[in-house]
């Protein structure tokens, strides 16, 4: 029973953060039809910025949080303007954008290595205190992380459902021509999506690295897991992505608790392969039209 409770607790924690990461990936896929392999580096930007501001500059927590997320959004903006925009509308978009984002991720990770070195960084505990339910140790910091992530998932969902720009972002992902005929300026929408997506990755970086450690390679595994989530949820589907994030988070936590930590990643990939065979369009994928 305690094992199950432990798995649910960890699963909700992972799921909330994966949800933020995966939502960013899926929004980019929806609008640009691009797999952004620099997404993990944007996670890194958020994490390192937060660490620098809290640990080195000793500035207040809220400021660190805001600056780190804004910093990731800014890096996303630069990526879009300098790297992605010049490729838009050119032949070979699929492979060119993929290679460009891999390149960007190498630059950003190497930059982190140069600036911060290979040593692992640990964020100071910003929210003190922990308590036990039976044998399961729950830290207040993790609860704050979960609450923040869930708050932003809800905010994103409301934004995408009710606001003018949110509707436009969904419209672009469902039918580009129709969205343009409604007057949505495609390039500006891409820029907005990239900034939001980068901010979400940065936010995930701030949140998760406040619990785990931070190293120049830390962005990779969360990105891969977010990728599993988006494939499971049906690429481009917002609702599917959020459901999938919690499913994958719980699955990972179950694997860790019942089979051991070493099983988490191979288990997830096995799950993804099975998914791709039995439901290639994902949990909420509704066929070709929906996916693309």
């Amino acid at each position, binding site marked *: 029973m305690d094992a199950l409770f432990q798995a649910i607790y960890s699963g909700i924690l992972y799921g909330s953060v994966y949800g933020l990461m995966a939502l960013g990936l899926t929004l980019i896929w929806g609008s640009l039809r691009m797999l952004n392999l620099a997404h993990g580096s944007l996670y890194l930007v958020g994490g390192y910025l937060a660490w620098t501001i809290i640990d080195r500059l000793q500035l207040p927590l809220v400021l660190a949080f805001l600056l780190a997320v804004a910093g990731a959004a800014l890096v996303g903006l630069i990526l879009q303007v300098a790297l992605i925009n010049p490729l838009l509308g050119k032949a070979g978009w699929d492979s060119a954008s993929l290679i460009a984002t891999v390149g960007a991720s190498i630059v950003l990770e190497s930059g982190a290595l140069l600036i911060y070195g290979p040593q692992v960084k640990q964020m100071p505990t910003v929210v003190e205190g922990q308590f036990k339910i039976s044998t399961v140790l729950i830290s207040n910091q993790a609860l704050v992380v979960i609450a923040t992530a869930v708050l932003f998932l809800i905010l994103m969902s409301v934004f995408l459902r009710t606001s003018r720009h949110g509707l436009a972002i*969904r419209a672009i992902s*469902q*039918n580009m021509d129709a969205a*343009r005929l409604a007057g949505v300026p*495609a390039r500006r929408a891409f820029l907005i999506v990239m900034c939001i997506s980068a901010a979400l990755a940065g936010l995930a970086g701030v949140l998760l690295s406040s619990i785990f450690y931070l190293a120049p390679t830390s962005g990779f595994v969360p990105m891969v897991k977010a990728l599993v989530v988006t494939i499971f949820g049906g690429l481009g589907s917002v609702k599917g992505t959020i459901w999938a994030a919690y499913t994958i988070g719980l699955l990972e936590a179950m694997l860790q608790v019942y089979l051991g930590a070493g099983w988490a990643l191979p288990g997830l990939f096995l799950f993804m392969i099975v998914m791709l065979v039995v439901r290639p369009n994902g949990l909420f994928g*509704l066929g070709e039209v*929906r996916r693309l």
Partner: protein
Amino acid sequence: MLQVSDLQAGYGGSQVLHSISLHVQTGEAVVILGPNGHGKTTLLRAISGLIQPTGGHIELDGRAITRLEPEAIVAAGVVHIPQGDLLFPEMTVLENLLMGAYRSDAWGARNKKLEQVFDLFPPLAGRKRQLARSLSGGERRMLALGRGLMGKARIFMIDEPSLGLAPLVIEQVYETIREIRRTGLSILLVEENANHIAGLADRVYLLEAGTLVREGTADELLQDEALLAAYLG
């Protein structure tokens, strides 16, 4: 108000439109009749900017709109209801309609416009919360037209509204288009079947192989059955 001169366009090297010149006056309903595959859809797509014309000139009220981005052409007041409706399938009917009022100059009036659209298309009002992909063919066509009416259209370009619909539904759709026309909106419509456009068109062009071969008032051209049979089969 809309003036197209010597327009040429095509897809990747193969030319579809050869020197198209036409005009639509304010408040006028102009229909382009032509068989399938002769460039009707290409013509509307070139005007609305979805494809780049390779030559020629398009003006709206004397202002050049040739080769602008589609969003800038919409901003000028050219609203294109494309073939196949092009809805947002995973958005509700209401969300689809709201997207029609996306532009900031239309967003403020969205609730008033919604009422007008629901008055014009009562079936949509009952399906507000339903996903667009769950609608019937006729309802989709209504939604596409309704979405176009949510913005600030000055000229309404409609691509073959009869396509794929049952005869009775076609009659309903054309009745609404005639109603839209009575509000004074300028209309440029392309159609394959001459029977549908009686009572709607002021002027008619015949399009064949990417060229406008005849022009005349609806009264003249639609009476000439031999001519129509020769071109439309």
